[in-house]
């Protein structure tokens, strides 16, 4: 264990009995999980390296219950960790030993589908894919499609600003949300946006999206629905080097084509996938690029030939264009299986999530190889190539002495490399606890203090999901003081108006 979480506060631990009794007055007994065995089921999310047993698990079923719990938590000064489906890869919903784990799974209803305004009002516990399923018969879908979409919740998507293979063209969660209902620490309820566009004040929907459960509990989401394009076709392009593949990706975008999906994988992943479930990927390729183009039939055929030409110019060793829907899905099958496939070639893997400027891809890959060698580990790579989002999968064996530490060290080194190439620590999985202690690589203390001040504006007592995202814990009062800049003392009794 190298991760330090805030020490459980004795004052909270000693009040557990009272807390449970008072939660019992808010929730029916089946919505309150108290015994240790049942609480164990919640001890981590999909970032399984670290675990903690929650103080108590509360599963509210309506907004009034959420408000009452948040009011109680503020009154008793107890921490709260919101949780959706627990698929976070960064430990965002990892419990705190002295905190209520607030599971949103009972908020599982689609409240309204409004085709004319092209939106749906849903509860946060609804699965991502369930939204698209509910509207597909009418020809609509919800665009952000994380690989975890059969499991993850829309509330978790909002909190993590989840992306998917289609976000190059259709945007991330933040670009596809129209409204939120949020309960703040203390129980205040606020409604942001609705079925209309843009905000009458500060864009708090934008701020909430990607805030990792640190600002408020999302209790309702209005998502945009898009019309399904009439056709989509896929292209499978093989290259003799990753650099050639990366150049081709750049050339496609330079030609003004924004594909619906633009993914890439390296040799290690291609081979893992073919061993897991053969789908016809070229085994002689060092890099495989999958391109999806969607739109009207005429447009798609036109773009497919444009991309084929580019691929030829860039020296592709394999060029295949799908001629049927089944073939398009087959092109994707391997990509969709990438994670499970990789888990068959190594006992454990750690999925990283840095983003770099696309042109730096060859440098990033060379650097990663060098860093992996230093740790005696290997890395398989899948990328959202169109937007430079890397998912290096670090292969390790947790049962081997020192491997966990080496994997973690390699992960950190890779992320530092991304930042040094002009990129960022995380493209879609969030900071959580996993990358918390690396925030200083990207941000100055002043940058981070400004972000923490915002946290204070929402949660002055720092009770909502503390110990995540920020490498240090501060009391909000510490931020109350004016910064002294340029040697000038701030005026002590500043007139407010």
């Amino acid at each position, binding site marked *: 264990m190298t991760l330090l979480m805030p020490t459980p506060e004795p004052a909270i631990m000693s009040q557990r009995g009272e807390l449970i009794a008072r939660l019992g007055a808010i929730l029916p007994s089946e919505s309150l999980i108290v015994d240790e065995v049942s609480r164990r089921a919640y001890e981590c999310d999909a970032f399984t390296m670290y675990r903690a047993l929650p103080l108590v698990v509360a599963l509210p079923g309506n907004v009034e219950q959420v408000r009452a719990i948040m009011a109680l938590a503020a009154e008793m000064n107890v921490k709260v960790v919101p949780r959706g489906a627990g698929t976070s890869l960064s430990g965002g919903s990892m419990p705190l030993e002295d905190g209520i784990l607030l599971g949103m799974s009972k908020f599982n209803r689609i409240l309204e589908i409004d085709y004319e305004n*092209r939106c749906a009002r849903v509860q946060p516990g609804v699965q991502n894919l369930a939204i698209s399923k509910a509207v597909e018969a009418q020809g609509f879908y919800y665009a952000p499609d994380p690989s975890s979409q059969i499991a993850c919740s829309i509330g978790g998507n909002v909190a993590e600003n989840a992306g998917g293979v289609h976000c190059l063209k259709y945007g991330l969660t933040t670009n596809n949300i129209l409204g939120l209902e949020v309960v703040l620490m203390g129980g205040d309820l606020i409604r942001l946006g609705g079925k*209309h566009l843009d905000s009458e004040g*500060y864009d708090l929907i934008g701020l909430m999206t990607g805030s990792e459960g640190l600002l408020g509990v999302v209790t309702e989401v209005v998502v945009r629905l898009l*019309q399904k394009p009439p056709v989509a076709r896929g292209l499978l392009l093989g290259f003799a080097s990753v650099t050639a593949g990366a150049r081709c990706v750049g050339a496609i975008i330079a030609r003004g084509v*924004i594909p619906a999906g633009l993914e890439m994988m390296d040799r290690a992943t291609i081979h893992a996938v073919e061993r897991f479930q053969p789908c016809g990927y070229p085994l002689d390729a060092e890099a495989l690029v999958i391109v999806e183009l969607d739109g009207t039939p005429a447009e798609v055929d036109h773009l497919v030939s444009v991309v084929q030409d580019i691929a030829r110019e860039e020296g592709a060793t394999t060029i295949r264009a799908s001629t049927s829907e089944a073939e398009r899905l087959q092109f994707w099958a391997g990509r969709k299986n990438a994670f499970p496939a990789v888990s068959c070639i190594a006992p454990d893997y750690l999925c990283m999530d840095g983003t770099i*400027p*696309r042109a730096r891809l060859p440098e990033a890959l060379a650097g990663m190889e060098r860093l992996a060698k230093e740790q005696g580990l290997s890395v398989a790579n899948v990328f959202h190539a169109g937007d430079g989002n890397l998912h290096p999968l670090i292969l390790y064996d947790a049962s081997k002495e020192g491997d966990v530490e080496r994997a973690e060290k390699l992960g950190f080194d890779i992320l530092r490399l991304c930042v040094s190439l002009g990129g960022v620590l995380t493209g879609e999985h969030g900071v959580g606890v996993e990358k918390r202690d690396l925030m200083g690589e990207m941000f100055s203390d002043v940058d981070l203090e*400004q972000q923490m001040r915002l946290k204070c504006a929402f949660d002055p007592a720092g009770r909502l999901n503390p110990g995540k995202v920020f490498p240090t814990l501060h009391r909000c009062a510490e931020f109350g003081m004016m910064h002294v*800049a340029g040697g000038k003392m701030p005026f002590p009794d500043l007139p407010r108006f």
Partner: protein
Amino acid sequence: MMQAALATLEIRDESDAVDAICAANAKGVSCAIVGGGSKSQLGRCAPQTQALSTPALAGVTLYEPNELVLSARAGTRLSEIEALLENNGQQLAFEPMDYGPLLGAEAGYATIGGVIAANASGPRRIKAGAARDHLLGFRCVTGRGEQVKSGGRVMKNVTGYDLSKLVCGSYGTLALLTELTLKVLPKSETECTLLAIGADEAESLALLRRATATPCEPSSLAMLPAGVALALDADAAAIRLEGPTISVTARRDDLVARLSGGGVRFETLDERDSTTLWRGLRDAAPIAAQVGQVWRISVAPTEGFAVVERIRRAGVPLLAHFYDWAGGLIWLCVETTSDAYAAVVRAAVDVSGGHATLIRASQETRTIVDVFHPQPAALAALTRRVKESFDPAHILERGRMRAEF
């Protein structure tokens, strides 16, 4: 408090901004941030003591067309950026509007900082997103006088809070933006506009919504009441299609087939006329020339007509109006009166949700009427705490958005 000519400080770099804002904090004076600065006409009427002028903070600092990214200092003219992009077949897809014509000032003066601070977005907003969807990262000096950065230059980034969204539409009340990094996109090969003429206002709006439920991917949809544009003597629905020529033509034909019936006739505007039409709509040209007060109202597309009807039935003298965003954005010009009919307009909007912003009115009116839609108590309190997390002493654009800060 009112002063004839504002003391103006020229901001040439970040350290100028730090000095100016720290000094303002020390003295407790409020500062306007002036980019193009041609438009003192807008926002709440709240006289500031001092102006921080940004045009010297200019220049494109990074442009990599193949990476779809551009960075510029905040005082850079929008027109300069657009020309640079145009030369590379690219654009700011959110189509920032130029308020110049509407506010009776010259066009072309906006700075990129002002555009972002106003989250200014045009007719393509419904498909391409708003300014907020294209800001990847920024540097700024906060109201505390601190240099802060957020975001980055890559397309996908969830590292820390997404402050880029927050500064878009903050009207200079949080921080003085110094440098912005934007996502840029390829321009479409061509565009055309399909006009469906002859249905009445409500039917034309319904037709726009039907168009949004087709796979024809319209990028803009406006309803133009007779007389407001194109010298049309009947109500019309205008639908813009953009993309490769081969696809635009196919989609136009498909749309005609899907929308035919009900006695409407179709006309097509070619690329040049289409571009001209949407640039005009972007800048609210159909109502700009009217003498009167102007409201900009954002509601659910199905509610646009009902909102206008409620306002009309309440006896408000409407001089001109039109709808953008498939009915979700209403530009409304009313006969001038002391309170711009604010209570009626807002009540009409509140029935179904949305917001109404008073864009053009006299100083006196903007002193007594909330320019931005009022907020419920819990949200207003949170808004104020957010403001104070950046600018605790209310130094920047004091009173511009909300009376309480």
